[in-house]
């Protein structure tokens, strides 16, 4: 049995599916106490006579931003802005944090060559202005760090020398070739780390007591899951998992592995595309004019057939309205009625998901093929290490392409491997 948990501020839902993907139980109640996990895990433990194979938790609704600790965002680039117009503003959702931005000279080009030496002394001097007994979380973003992380690592060393217990996020952990987007993503991740740590500790503690030996995961924004122990390190990947899980749940009920799925609920209609059984993804989450979040995320948009150039029939229309009194768009005809919480179901059936996204150097097709094969095998190993059966792993994306106007022989390599994928055979909880 696999269980998926959706957590919101005041409510939780659990859905359990058996080995064939059939829904075998669901549970929902309001959250009153500080730590809801013992009760939720107790329900899961008493639900199944057979072993619980995995529990996946959507914690996106419970993650909270750092408000107590000092947050430092180190930005490393060749020169500071020459005028106020060109300064990178602090995004609105970070303005309530105790955020200090430190600009430092340094950076690399896309060939990994140093553009300027890192001014460690100026960083150290700036850090001296922060009280040494401060608990610190920090992000470090350097120009060109996706090609050469040297300056980010050196800056992190300087931070840890001054503040040995600081939690530091390096921007090269998130692929984007936009300095602004990586800076924002790293700062957001830093601000969520404490919350991620606390949630991971609570979940692991409850699992140890109620479900000893059962692997526990958290859901990520591509519709997959990763081990819970990583939640404290990369909580930002969990922030927008809910929508992706909803699409995974809808895809499971509708038994659709390829095509567009429309989900209608009390809030309206959204559309997402499923490819090879998992949500098609963006490499970033765009937020209008604000910086984007550099996370692989399911592509889900408000449904608007008026945009389409000609009639397009979605593969499924999943009706997830709470009751029939909620009106549904007249141009949509339901093909599946969802009786369960789609997000919790999506968490239950979410596959293990591992990505590699980096710049490589290749001067021949053979070299490129070698890169891709090696990356695929690395990711297969990772997913197996996380708990997937080796025969269950498969590559759902494997591309290598040159960056327009990029340096010759520099290629962006993107590979995604999933494992422990559930066939779309569930019918309990759905009516057609």
């Amino acid at each position: 049995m696999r269980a998926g948990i959706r957590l919101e501020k005041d409510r939780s839902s659990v859905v359990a599916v058996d080995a064939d993907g059939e829904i075998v139980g669901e549970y929902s109640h309001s959250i009153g106490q500080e730590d809801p996990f013992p009760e939720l895990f107790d329900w899961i433990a008493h639900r199944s006579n057979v072993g619980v194979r995995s529990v996946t938790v959507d914690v996106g609704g419970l993650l909270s931003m750092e408000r107590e600790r000092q947050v430092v965002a180190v930005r490393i680039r060749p020169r500071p802005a020459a005028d106020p117009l060109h300064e990178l503003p602090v995004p609105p959702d970070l303005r309530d944090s105790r955020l200090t931005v430190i600009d430092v000279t340094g950076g690399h080009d896309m060939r990994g060559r140093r553009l300027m030496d890192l001014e460690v002394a100026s960083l150290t001097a700036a850090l001296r202005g922060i009280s040494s007994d401060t608990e610190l979380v920090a992000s470090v973003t350097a120009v060109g760090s996706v090609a050469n992380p040297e300056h980010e690592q050196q800056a992190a060393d300087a931070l840890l020398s001054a503040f040995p217990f600081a939690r530091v996020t390096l921007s090269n952990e998130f692929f984007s070739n936009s300095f602004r987007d990586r800076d924002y993503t790293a700062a957001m991740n830093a601000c969520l780390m404490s919350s991620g740590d606390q949630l991971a500790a609570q979940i692991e503690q409850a699992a140890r007591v109620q479900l000893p030996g059962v692997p526990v995961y958290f859901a990520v924004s591509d519709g997959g899951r990763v081990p819970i122990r990583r939640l404290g390190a990369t909580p930002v990947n969990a922030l927008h998992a809910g929508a992706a899980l909803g699409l995974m749940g809808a895809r499971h009920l509708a038994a659709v592995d390829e095509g567009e799925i429309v989900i209608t609920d009390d809030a309206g209609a959204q559309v997402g595309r499923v490819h090879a059984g998992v949500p098609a993804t963006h490499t970033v989450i765009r937020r209008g004019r604000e910086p984007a979040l550099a996370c692989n995320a399911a592509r889900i948009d408000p449904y608007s057939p008026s945009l389409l150039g000609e009639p397009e029939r979605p593969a499924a229309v999943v009706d997830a309205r709470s009751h029939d009194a909620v009106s549904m768009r007249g141009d949509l005809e339901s093909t599946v009625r969802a009786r369960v919480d789609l997000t919790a179901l999506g968490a239950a059936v979410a596959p293990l998901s591992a990505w590699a996204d980096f710049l490589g150097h290749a001067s021949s097709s053979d070299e490129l093929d070698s890169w891709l094969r090696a990356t695929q095998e690395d990711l297969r190993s990772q997913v197996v290490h996380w708990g997937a059966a080796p025969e269950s792993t498969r590559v759902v994306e494997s591309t290598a392409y040159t960056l327009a106007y990029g340096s010759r022989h520099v290629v962006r390599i993107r590979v995604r491997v999933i494992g422990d994928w559930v066939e779309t055979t569930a019918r309990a909880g759905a009516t057609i």
Partner: protein
Amino acid sequence: MRVLSPEDVDRVALGAQFLACSIDPTTMLMYSDMTRMAMTSHTLTLASLDDLAPDDLVVAVGLVSQGLLMAEMPPCGDEMLGCLAAVERAVGRRAAAIFPLAAANLNAIVPMLTALQAGLPVVDADPMGRVFPLISQTTLNAAGVNIGPVALMGANGERILIEVGNARRAEALVRAATEELGGWAASAMYPCTVSQLRDHGVIESVSRMITLGHILESVEPLATKYRKLSDALGTSRVARAQVAYVESSFGPSDVALPAQPSSLTLSDDGNGRIVRIEIQNEILMVLVDGAVAAAVPDIVTLIDPEKASVVSLDDVRVGDVLDVLKTPADPKWYEPEGLALVGPAAFGLSLAETQP
């Protein structure tokens, strides 16, 4: 002179994305925002060539990229003005106005902010009418207008002035210098008179982007937008198809273009056609079942039909459904001198071998 509004700037940005393939959306947004902010205290004017004296000096400004998106190394703000001043010093005259190096992509919007910083108008003309990968691929060069002197400045503050006449040599020198400057460089080049730009440039290309932006920003159905694009620009839809493969190739090439070629293969579920898109920095050719459906200098745009938005090549993924649109380039490009610079053969493509 026409005073541009902040909304016009957004329309230029939308139109500029439609006319290009490799979009840097972050920088486009940043420049759009910075320009709008600068417009709160300064007036942005668009000058027709008739607004200026025939002998006035006008200079092209824009970005040259070789190795890095501007989004990865944001500008400090003094680069464009530094280049403009360097060219003015070199030719011994002050510019009366600036014009975009290309009326597409970032080079369409960067001159807007530069014009505000310099207190100059932007000319409603450019030397490409779209964007081509090389700075030698201009209607001005095709007509023999001198590209030099060329001024470059990187985000690290380093400056280079290249005194050069031959555009191909300029291309080689600028490309090499840009990579060493960090991956992109602000540039000023093609100092010329208003008469030269009128005779040999692509006229009203900025206005065209505003028109395009008007069409694209509307909330009308995509089919209506396509009809309007067809009426305004002669745009037609080549295919709606799903991306099946994204590939890079490493074949030998005699053409000194940035980056290696890559290809997209799409399948049209409706009728089983196979669409192949050949790319090297920009989209060079579209084949449908082996027949050429579009080729440079045609402008090819990828549209997400679900969102009615332009798709950047960097964002294309296997499984995506895309509309492939073709728009004719400026008529100058289909003349023999134009085709010699930007036709398929200039990119190492042989049309004869691709005909069915």
